[in-house]
């Protein structure tokens, strides 16, 4: 929706295909063919797709610029740009302490953000349920770039040392049953009490939508920046669209 809003504010229009049923892919058309066709209809393509690498494939077949708006459990680079912008509004990014919380294995926003933060000398703290840690290949890549990554069992043990707390959704389908899910989800819930000893300038971010990860009581806290973050998605995506279409 934010890309559509961005395009509208730029004075352009957008054609949205929100489901496979709404296009020829329902008839068995390949993504490659769909992209070739849509290339003739639009000046840029913004793609969100359940398969990792779909945006890269699209870029190979498109005759117009392609923006990856999320590919499966892979990457979400446009979200990362607005995440960085939101952090930058509050502090310099270089050398800060950032914690990623939640499903870091399948969370594409976490993957892209971690990769970007490695460019800023950020110290990365990770807190995730067992089995949902950052992919080992990504960890190797980040540490090879010199990034310090510290795993924690709980948010409590690191919250006082953080500048940014980046929370992601733990998805119910990753767990064998509801009880396991609720047990884990409750242990990763961010509350005003949890942040009582945090640095004054700590900001809490979330790519949204949230479910139970952040207590609504936190919304009024100066730490809470997730709605501002979401709003930033529009100007950042306007800038991206302008850049790729100029």
């Amino acid at each position, binding site marked *: 929706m934010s890309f559509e809003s961005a395009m509208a504010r730029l004075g352009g229009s957008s054609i949205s295909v929100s489901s496979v049923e709404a296009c020829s892919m329902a008839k068995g058309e390949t993504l490659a063919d769909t992209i070739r066709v849509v290339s003739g209809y639009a000046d840029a393509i913004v793609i969100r*797709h359940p*398969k*990792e690498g*779909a945006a890269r494939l699209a870029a190979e077949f498109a005759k117009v610029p392609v923006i990856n708006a999320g*590919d499966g459990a892979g990457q979400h680079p446009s979200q990362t740009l607005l995440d960085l912008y939101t952090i930058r509004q509050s502090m310099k990014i270089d050398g800060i302490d950032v914690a990623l919380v939640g499903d870091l294995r399948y969370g594409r926003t976490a993957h892209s953000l971690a990769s970007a933060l490695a460019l800023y000398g950020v110290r990365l703290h990770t807190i995730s349920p067992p089995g949902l840690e950052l992919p080992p*290949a990504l960890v*190797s890549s980040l540490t090879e770039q010199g990034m310090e990554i510290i795993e924690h069992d709980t948010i409590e043990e690191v919250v006082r040392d953080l500048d940014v707390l980046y929370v992601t959704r733990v998805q119910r389908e990753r767990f064998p049953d509801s009880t396991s899910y609720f047990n884990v989800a409750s242990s990763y819930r961010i509350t005003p009490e949890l942040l009582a000893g945090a640095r004054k300038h700590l900001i809490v971010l979330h790519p949204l939508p949230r479910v139970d990860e952040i207590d609504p009581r936190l919304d009024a806290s100066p730490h809470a920046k997730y709605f501002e973050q979401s709003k930033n998605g529009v100007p950042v995506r306007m800038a991206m669209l302008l850049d790729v279409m100029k």
Partner: protein
Amino acid sequence: MRHIAAADTGDEEGEGLLVRRIKNGTVIDHIDGGEALNVVKILGIAGTTQEALSIATNVPSKNMVKKDIVKISNRELSKEEVDRIALISPNATINIIRNFKVCEKEGVEIPTMITGSVRCPNPGCITRTNEPIKSRFAVLPGGKGLRCLYCDSVITKDLTSYII
């Protein structure tokens, strides 16, 4: 008397030929010990074959302690095949035999890119669908693994099980 190149014999210990010489074809020598069957898999020989094929495994070698050798008649390997062999056996040498003589002898080089011959281990990768693309992997420095150029998945172990 037998006057043929050592590369064509697997006979570095001088204890006799393990298999007969071939008139025309390729001898893949200095394969890492135990990898010969994987080399054969790379060559696409999995079932019925018309070619004369000889495989020697874990034979003594002066330089490698143990090595494997594969001889295949009437066939010269493509660059893609040689590149794939390099991934699992970087010390291998490729000897082209014509009329019983070694006409060309070259080592293998680990390529920087592998296209279309390795399956991505990630079931969620776009290359695992019916899209009209070939898998593409960048070879990690030192040949220590492969990275999928589409989904960034990395293969560092058991590479041969992903070879198509």
